[in-house]
């Protein structure tokens, strides 16, 4: 069953067939995958989805593939954690973490978009795939390409953290380090996509790639018992996931699978790279590109491809936006780990830190359900946490020294049993 019927320009509504295309020929606006919802009504039901695999492919009829999935057979279906301990710390009633730090196989939400993009690349007949990446996307493209037997080229900024380089290279892609930041890499990849006959997933497969991000939103709704959270806080990097979580919610409403409870989506960025947040705060439709300077490197995109649509959707949904400085981001990483046992990378810390700001400002009411989207795993970026903890005590292998250190750590509250 083919669900997607065409590509349509988001600006001028010109329509194109399903093909590797990013922009409209008339106005250069981005194109988006369009579905025949009338045909899907009654076919895509709660039951039909629940009978599907425990992966993102349970939503395959709302994804732009023609045949069987070719990649990411175990990607998606990550936990939605009811975060009561964190909720108590923040003074909110009902809080959830959508935890893509556990996504398979490379522990970030990118495994969703790449699963769809590579399936589409294979359908189009490409044998080489690639991407511009801040790290997580490179991991995912490299891993999925290895699994699918495709040649891969991953292009990354030359100052990328060592851990993120290893996390790609182990899968055997061609890695090219580009002098400059992500925006420079992305700009080069636009030219590569035009010159080489490769599928650059976030360039010429972008209309299909981005659709994979909808599954993050579909899962939130299904895991909440086919309900939408009133508030969803989403990090903004290139601007892919926030509009697609919104699109997922709107599709579920359109198909009658959830009730329209007026969901609001809120944008989170690091203060060192917050072009979208600034535009929203200033009431502008267009953001000013920035030179990123933040520890949240995986979301340090100063010229977000879909930033304009993030601004539009945050406004349309009645949402808010916030940015947080680096130390608050690190504190939020520690808070989430300490209260819920979830170790996220700084991108996830950014989302939580910004959620806290929006709760404290009243933009997100304390008594309404809130979902915070965690999109990546902290074990990939342990170096940013260096210096965040006191040195652990070192003692001799003697029980009396252990007794003393426990007493010290627990402030003298520990009762030590007398030796028999």
């Amino acid at each position, binding site marked *: 069953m083919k669900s997607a019927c065409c590509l349509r320009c988001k600006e001028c509504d010109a329509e194109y067939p399903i093909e590797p295309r990013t*922009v409209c020929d008339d106005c250069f606006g981005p194109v988006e995958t369009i579905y025949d919802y009338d045909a899907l009504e009654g076919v895509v039901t709660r039951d039909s989805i629940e009978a599907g695999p425990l992966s993102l492919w349970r939503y395959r009829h709302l994804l732009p593939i023609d045949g069987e999935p070719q990649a990411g057979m175990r990607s998606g279906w990550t936990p939605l954690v009811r975060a009561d301990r964190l909720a108590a710390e923040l003074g909110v009633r009902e809080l959830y973490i959508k935890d893509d730090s556990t996504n398979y196989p490379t522990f970030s939400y990118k495994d969703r978009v790449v699963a769809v993009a590579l399936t589409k690349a294979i359908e189009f007949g490409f044998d080489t795939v690639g991407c511009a990446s801040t790290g997580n996307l490179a991991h995912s493209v490299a891993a999925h390409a290895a699994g699918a037997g495709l040649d891969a080229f991953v292009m990354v900024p030359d100052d990328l953290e060592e851990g993120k380089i290893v996390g790609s290279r182990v899968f055997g892609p061609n890695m090219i380090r580009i002098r400059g930041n992500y925006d420079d890499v992305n700009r080069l990849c636009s030219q590569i996509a*035009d010159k080489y*006959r490769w599928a650059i997933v976030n360039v010429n497969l972008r209309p299909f790639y981005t659709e994979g991000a909808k599954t993050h939103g579909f899962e939130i709704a299904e895991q909440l018992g086919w309900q939408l959270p009133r508030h969803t806080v989403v990090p903004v990097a290139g601007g892919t996931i926030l509009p697609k979580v919104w699109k997922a919610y709107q599709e579920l409403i359109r198909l009658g699978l959830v009730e329209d409870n007026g969901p609001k989506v809120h944008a989170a960025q690091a203060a060192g790279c917050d072009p979208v947040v600034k535009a929203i705060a200033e009431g502008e439709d267009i953001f000013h590109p920035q030179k990123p300077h933040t520890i949240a490197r995986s979301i340090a995109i100063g010229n977000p491809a879909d930033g304009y649509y993030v601004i539009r959707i945050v406004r349309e949904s009645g949402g808010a936006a916030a940015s947080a400085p680096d130390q608050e981001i690190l504190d939020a990483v520690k808070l989430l780990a300490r209260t819920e046992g979830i170790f996220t990378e700084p991108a996830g810390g950014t989302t939580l830190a910004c959620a806290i700001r929006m709760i404290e400002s009243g933009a997100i009411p304390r008594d309404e359900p809130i979902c915070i989207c965690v999109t990546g795993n902290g074990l990939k970026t342990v170096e940013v946490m260096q210096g965040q903890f006191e040195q652990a005590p070192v003692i001799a292998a003697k029980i009396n020294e252990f007794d003393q250190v426990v007493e010290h750590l627990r402030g003298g509250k520990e009762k030590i049993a007398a030796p028999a």
Partner: protein
Amino acid sequence: MSKTRRRCWLTFEGGCQDEPCVWRMARQYPDVVFDIRQASVSRAIGIMALQFEGEPDRIDAAVAYLEEMGVRVDPVEGGSLVSP
């Protein structure tokens, strides 16, 4: 040399949004044809989608001239790409 087409996004900010940069480029490079496909301008920033047509080295020179005036010029991401 054969003529070519190039599609670009122009961003005007930091002062150059108040200057007639595109007019100046047209005067300086009359052999580079340009076609404005869409534009959005506010007080602080302007964005314009432009298609250039001309000899490649003349387009390069016109783009460099715009950049000298403070205009940011980005290539439009891959349009349609015929799959192999």
